[in-house]
């Protein structure tokens, strides 16, 4: 049993601390090492998914392009999204959370150190399965949400098709095989199988991580750190973990039923045999919409740490930010069918899902107002972390507004499956999650490594990112309104799409250049000695109360907390926060 006795577990942890070299990483159960491994691996996949984005944008740069074949294009755009969502953003938040949550709450490690290590290795296995699909020329190619019946293949349908073609001999032209494809042979290849297996490995990994975070946060806080004194990043990791615990099963069920349809002859998504392809959409999106918040809530948490420190003020409206995160968590389970307005839902369902989707804008806007108010009258320091933080607020606001537009059903009809949706998701995920990631990266890098990233290169990266993402993604709004469908491998000229696509491609390469600057910055910084101080930003929270990087046991002594800003209290004994709290 995983949890034997505390003594055995303590010994295991102790052993893993004293090991060095590669073995110390492979066998580690230390939350900081596991966190770093998550971050490295996820960042590798960020580069991998980024190269795929460049391939997509190169293909779309000019009309009638044949840089990629349609088959390659399908694999590349599907894997771009799958990798960025499941192998980059989700695990990088797990990495940040792993490293930071125990430090922020004054704990020594996560609640289940060995389960934590298992989660990382399952994540790596899922990443390898998904990436290996390219070697078999069978990368998932039905889009990241793998809609049935496109992903269906009844067993034996391929052999039937071949037999039919043999019988018809010369008559077996493209038209007949296409017609037979409609009878259940949509995806005869292994592409969806790679997706199902990879996604489920990643799902189990995420579930172990989520359970670990929840128990850690609920049960391991330092003395005095009540729920209402937890750093907001910890709050958001907790809400995210609850979302994972309750949302992942929908994805597991959806993909299991698909697997059975494909290989065991069941009929769940086959309308001709009493199934229903819409079942896939309901199941997938009842995971998929909470998933959007799984990708963005930790970003909210990071911004709620970075903005106050660089504004020299406590966060404005702590309670509102914390509980609006909880509200978003609950609401995120009630909005899934806004992804399905165009499939013909009953009007009452459309009205419900349009309303609930609009409702979710309220807690989100609450956060934006709080962040802006945090900077109000602050002594703002424009370090790179702060620039990314402010950039996040502006860009995420655009992503929120165009998202709210999609909640309007008649408008949604018009832009469903066009580039407008692509614009929205990229303002949320690039303008939101990625900007927050770099805010957090520049902020915590000294804690992770004992070294400060170069601010000059960081500034250049920030401006390349800000300009690049608007060049890449803003024109997509217009392309969507002009009717350009997503997921088409090329387009004819003369539809007014040419210039906008070219601008978007230039933006994508600008982003790539910015990313390159970060990679250079990273390697350059890592060659330098560890000179960062324990608290280089004059911060407020406990992770800065220990050394940079922290010792294996995190804190030499148990920290005792009396307010939301324990480190501020320590540095300002003449006027600590707890004097003002009741």
């Amino acid at each position, binding site marked *: *049993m*995983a*949890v034997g*006795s*505390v003594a055995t*577990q*303590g010994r295991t942890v102790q052993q893993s601390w004293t090991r060095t070299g590669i073995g110390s990483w492979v066998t580690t159960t230390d939350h900081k090492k596991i966190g770093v491994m998550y971050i490295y691996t996820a960042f590798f996949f960020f580069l991998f998914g980024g190269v795929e984005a460049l391939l997509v944008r190169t293909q779309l740069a000019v009309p009638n392009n044949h840089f990629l074949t349609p088959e390659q294009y399908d694999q590349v755009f599907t894997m771009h999204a799958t990798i960025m969502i499941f192998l980059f953003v989700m695990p990088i938040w797990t990495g940040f959370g792993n490293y930071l949550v125990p430090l922020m709450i004054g*704990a*020594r490690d996560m*609640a*289940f150190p060995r*389960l934590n290590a298992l989660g990382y290795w399952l994540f790596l296995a899922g990443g390898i399965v998904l990436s290996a699909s390219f070697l078999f020329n069978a990368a998932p190619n039905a889009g990241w949400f793998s809609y049935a019946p496109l992903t269906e293949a009844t067993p034996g349908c391929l052999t039937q098709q071949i037999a039919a073609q043999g019988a018809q001999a010369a008559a077996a032209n493209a038209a007949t095989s296409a017609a037979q494809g409609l009878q259940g042979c949509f995806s005869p290849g292994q592409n969806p199988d790679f997706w199902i297996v990879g996604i489920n490995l990643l799902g189990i990994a995420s*579930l172990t991580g*989520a*359970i*670990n975070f*929840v*128990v850690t946060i*609920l*049960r*391991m806080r330092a003395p005095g750190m009540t729920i209402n004194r937890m750093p907001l990043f910890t709050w958001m990791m907790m809400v995210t973990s609850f979302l994972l*615990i*309750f949302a*992942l*099963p*929908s994805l597991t*069920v959806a993909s*299991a*039923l698909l697997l*059975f349809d494909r290989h*065991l*002859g*069941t*009929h*769940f998504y086959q309308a001709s*045999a*009493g*199934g*229903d392809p819409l*079942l896939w959409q309901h*199941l997938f999106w*009842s995971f998929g919409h909470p998933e959007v918040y799984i990708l963005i809530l930790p970003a909210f948490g990071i911004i709620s740490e970075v903005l106050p420190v660089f504004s020299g003020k406590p966060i404005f409206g702590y309670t509102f930010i914390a509980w609006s995160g909880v509200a978003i968590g609950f609401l995120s389970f009630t909005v899934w069918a806004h992804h399905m307005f165009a499939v013909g839902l009953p009007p009452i369902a459309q009205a419900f899902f349009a309303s609930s989707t609009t409702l979710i804008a309220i807690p989100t806007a609450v956060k934006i107002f709080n962040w802006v108010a945090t900077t109000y009258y602050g002594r703002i320091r424009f370090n790179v972390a702060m620039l990314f933080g402010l950039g996040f607020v502006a860009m995420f606001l655009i992503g929120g507004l165009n998202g709210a537009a999609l909640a309007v059903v008649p408008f949604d009809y018009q832009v469903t499956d066009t580039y407008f949706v692509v614009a929205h998701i990229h303002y949320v995920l690039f303008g939101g999650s990625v900007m927050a990631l770099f805010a957090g990266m520049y902020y915590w890098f000294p804690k992770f490594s004992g070294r400060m990233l170069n601010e000059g290169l960081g500034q250049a990266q920030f401006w390349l990112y800000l300009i690049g993402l608007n060049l890449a993604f803003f024109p997509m709004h217009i392309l969507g309104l002009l009717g350009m469908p997503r997921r088409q491998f090329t387009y004819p000229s003369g539809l007014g799409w040419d210039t906008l696509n070219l601008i978007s491609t230039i933006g994508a390469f600008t982003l790539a250049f910015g990313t390159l600057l970060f990679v250079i910055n990273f390697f350059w910084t890592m060659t330098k000695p560890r000179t960062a101080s324990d608290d280089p930003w004059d911060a407020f929270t*406990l992770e800065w*109360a220990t050394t940079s990087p922290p010792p294996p*046991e*995190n804190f*030499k*002594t*148990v*920290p*005792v*907390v*009396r*307010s939301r800003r*324990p*480190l501020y*209290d*320590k540095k300002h*004994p003449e006027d*600590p926060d707890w004097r003002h709290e009741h």
Partner: protein
Amino acid sequence: MSAVIERTEVRQEHAEPKGRGFGWYGMVFFLASEAVFFANLIASYLYLRVRAGSAWPHHVGYTEIILPAINTLILLSSSFPMHFAARGIGRGDRKALTRGLILTVILGSIFLAGQAYEYTHSPFNPSTDIFGSVFFTLTGFHGAHVTFGVLFLLVCWLRSLNGSFSKDSHFAINAVEMYWHFVDAVWIVLFTVLYVFSLPGI
């Protein structure tokens, strides 16, 4: 009261606070996720059934339900020895533990044997129609959970023969008990929606 982050000489151990252990909380959240998993399966079934309306195929009659009904009683009754086993080790009674565990294993295995009999004698299979798909998928996932539970119980039983558990150290027993009761509870719901709701006239 100057330093708020007080320096004490006590090193923080990876110790659990008083009350329920980490493992108990971990199990609760794991089983919560499992419950949502089965809820999704059942919701999928009900969705398909409502969408199909009168076209929904029926295979369960009053004779077909006798065997699964007996099986249900067997699985439910297995919760008692499980409960007494866990109660026993809570008092430090290793005999009660060993006896309770093996009795639970036997009852769980009888349930699985009954399910195997039902599967091999079924007039329909997963590809016959949509009811076949639903029936075998839902009972199959549950059966897989029972199988895992029986194996988990067997391991605990073997360890209990070696005296691995004591009054103060028996988390695995608590975990397997929670898991077993959960699997029982899921079966009650599955039996109701799959068999009882499929009877003619219901």
